[in-house]
Structures are given as C-alpha cells and as structure tokens.
C-alpha cells in the first residue's frame, strides 16, 4: 500500500491536528463546554481494508457525513462514527436525552454540521499549508455499513483511502471516530507534491 516518508507523514499529522484543534474550538463555543480533538495517527488503506476495520463484515452500522472537495485536488471526505457513538456525540452536544435508537431528522442535521466543521477545518488547514485553493460542498448525512458509505463513489473506484483516527473528548466522554479521504492516483500525487512544497518552505 501507498506510503509517505516519515517527514511527509509527520507534516500531515501536524497539519490535521491543527485543523481538528480549530474544529474543537468552534465546537466548544457552540456547546459552552470544553471539547478537545486530536489525530493520533493517519494511515493509507484500500477501501476494502477500511470497510473491514469499520466492521462491515459484521454488519456494523456507521453514521457518516460526506463532503466533496475539489480544486487543488479532488477528494470525497467522510467523517465516520459507529452509529451509537454519533447518538452519544449529538446528544452530549445538544444536551437532550432521547431514547430513540436512531438520529432524528434534526439530530442528523446537527451531526452534518459537526461533520461540516471537522471536515472544513481539516481541509482548510491543508489548503492553507499547501497555499492552494479548494472548494468544499455542503455536507450530506448517510447511515449504513462502512461498505455502503465508502461505496457511494461507485464500485469501480480503486484509489487509496487516507484515514485519520480522531480522538474526540467531550464532557469526560472519549469517543473515537474516523475521517477518511478517498484519493485516486492523481490526487495522491498532488497531495504528496503539496506536502513536499510545504516542507521545502518550512526548511526554506
């Protein structure tokens, strides 16, 4: 599977940590509580491997918020949580306890906003570091297995998935989630080039 050099890898982890840090600050302002987020690791995997890690084989259901980004490079971005965790996050943020086992329509919209904040912050941090322009779409909410969700961009797609594990803390609850970027070959090359440019400027 595709690999970055150690330096490229560290730069990317740093950029994404900057991004989720901003997202956490924005979310803290919304809920008036301390929210913290970090990205402990990033990996490159095939779509099948990611789906497997998300428990697709066991039929595990995932809540996902998807956004399309284009410009400097094209990618489909996803924020994903196990469905029960997304209930936990939304209800912690909204401060209501509803015993329904699925997100209601309004809660789905709240989840979309949370995804929107996180994905925009991650891509914003990346675009700034790369000094490039990206356009971001509005978020859409999806529920299903990891396979269903990552399959949204068509069966033939055979690129690489850049996965960020996100460690999310709110009101003493620790919740793990994932951000995934689907990258085809050209996008992957663009990504690598931007990181190299960024590193070159840093070393400058």
């Amino acid at each position, binding site marked *: 599977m595709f690999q970055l050099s150690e330096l490229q890898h560290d730069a990317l982890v740093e950029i994404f940590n900057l991004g989720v840090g901003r997202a956490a600050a924005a979310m803290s302002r919304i809920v008036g509580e301390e929210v913290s987020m970090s990205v402990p690791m990033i990996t490159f995997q095939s779509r099948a491997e990611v789906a497997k890690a998300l428990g697709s084989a066991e039929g595990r259901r995932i809540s996902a918020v998807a956004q399309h980004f284009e410009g400097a490079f094209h990618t489909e971005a996803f924020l994903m949580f196990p469905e029960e965790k997304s209930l936990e996050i939304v209800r912690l943020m909204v401060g209501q306890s509803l*015993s329904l086992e699925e997100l209601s329509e309004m809660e789905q919209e709240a989840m979309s906003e949370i995804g929107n904040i996180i994905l925009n912050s991650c891509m914003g941090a990346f675009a700034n570091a790369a000094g490039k322009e990206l*356009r971001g779409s*509005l978020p859409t909410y999806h529920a299903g297995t990891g396979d269903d969700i990552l399959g949204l961009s068509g069966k033939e797609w055979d690129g690489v998935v850049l996965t960020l594990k996100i460690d999310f803390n709110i009101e003493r609850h620790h919740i793990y989630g994932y951000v995934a970027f689907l990258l085809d070959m050209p996008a992957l090359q663009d990504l690598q080039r931007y990181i190299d440019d960024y590193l070159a400027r840093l070393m400058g």
Partner: protein
Amino acid sequence: MQLSLLQGVLKAVRAGIIVFDAEQRIVFWNQWMEQHSQMPAADMQGKSFTDVFPDMVDGRTHVAIRAALENNFASLLSQTLNKAPFPLYANAADVANHVRMQQAVHVMPLEIASLSRHCVVQITDVSMAVSREKKLRELASELESQTLVDGMTGIANRRRFDLHLDDEFRRAKRNTSPLSLIMIDVDYFKDYNDNYGHQHGDQCLVQIAGALSSVLNRSRDLVARYGGEEFTVVLPDTNEDGAMQIAEAMRAEIEGLQIEHAYSGVAKFVTASLGVSTLVPDHMSKTGTLIHAADRALYQAKRSGRNCVVMYSDKKKSE
C-alpha cells in the same frame, strides 16, 4: 434567463437570501428577509456584516461566511446546535415578544467569472420541524414513563416497584400481615464501571438481575431495579426470618456468579450489600417508613464491611 425574471424568482422564494461581497458587505437582501427582519433592502445595501449584526461578530455564522469568502467552503448551521442566529421573526406578535424564528442556515461560496468572490447565505424557517420533533420527544418520554419494565435488565422498573409496593402495603394493612423489603446495592460498582467499561457494567447488572429473580418463586414477590446499581425486593406475607433467608440466598447467588472484579475492596468477585426491613403496617404507616428502614439497614451493611445482609432494628426501641 432574463435578469428581471431572476429577480422575480428571488422575490418569490420562501427562504431568506443574503449575498455578501468579498468585503462582507451586503449586496443583496431578498423580500423574505425584508418581511421577517422588518429591515428594508434599501437600508441594508452596502452595509457590512459587522454593522448589521454586531451581536454575531466572530460567531458561528460569521466564521462560516469567512470560510466561504476566504476558503471557498460551504457551511451548514443546524437549528439544533445554533437555534436562531439571525434576528428574524415569523410575525409582528413574535417581534413584540422577542421570539425568534427557528432557523437552518446554509452558507455557500459563489464563484462567478469576472466578479470577486461572493457568498450567499440562505435561511430557512424550520419552526414546523422543530415543533414536530418536540412532539415526538414528548411522546417518547410519555411512553417511557408508562412502561413498567427496566429497559436494560428486563426486570420491573422503579415505577412498577412503586405501584406494587403501594398495592401490597394496602393488602398487608387490611390483613395485618407482615411485609418485607430488601434494598440491594452492588459493592464497588463505580470501580467496576471505571475499570471494565460501561458495557461490561451493564452486562454485570443484567446477570445480577437474573440471579435475584431466580431466588424468588411466589407470584407476588417482586424484584425491581431501583436505579443505577440498586435493586429492591418486595416480599408480601414475609416476616423478618423469612426475609433474612431470602436476602442471604440472594447475596450468595450474586457471589456465586463469580463475576471477576479485581478492583473491589471486599472480594475477587462482584458482591452486594443488602438491607432488610419488615413491617406489619397499621393505619398510620406509610410505605416511606419501610423504604427508609431498608435503606438504613443497607447503610449498616455497607458500614459492616459489605457483601453481607443487615436487618433493620429500631435502636431507640431496643435500647
């Protein structure tokens, strides 16, 4: 499409539309906005976001507008997390009462050739959806309050216990028969939860509920989840000796489950403390007396080292 037609469409749209230029100045304010903000477009033209919405500076909406103008990113502001960011009102009465319209806001960058970047803010009235969900929430909690079964363990819940105890108390009063109550608390359960996780904690409570139920075999005996890791047992026509025997059998049954608990201060396995009280109610007695006595006995059991059964005794009387 003709410009006049486009203008007509924007006028007719049942949503608020504001367009900002790259300097965050208002260049468009549609009729729906005029109607619900009570501010005419002519007054808004050319004004900056900061001037028109001083309360919203650096808020979520402002940040979203900047993200659209500077980064080209679209944003969604849900009603659930933002309530009503803009000072918009459904009608004149709401203006007078300061009741804002519930809003969903979309902020989208606009890229049009030959123009600097703009962004469009679209505001939708979601009051209907909000009240629909409120109704749904009320129905769900009403349904929940009517249920008699504890969702997690499947045994009787607190409400069923209250109802059952009232019934049995009245019956005992009529027949001048003894009524016993056992209060049960799992020892060091917080440490169990903290170390093994909530999922294992839940499983542990389910097993204990099963163990407690297995001890009872008379139809009017009832074991209920009192709350958290507390259980309670109602034993009609049962005197002190009978209640002590059942309580001891329950204690042994829980210990016998041998659920590993490395963080317990009293045993290697999950254990419980039990308090027992018995009463032959007279016309003055209340259920609260019985519950309070069992609670006191449970407290004594905790004080005497846990994993044991204590019978309530009225010290003042015996001294």
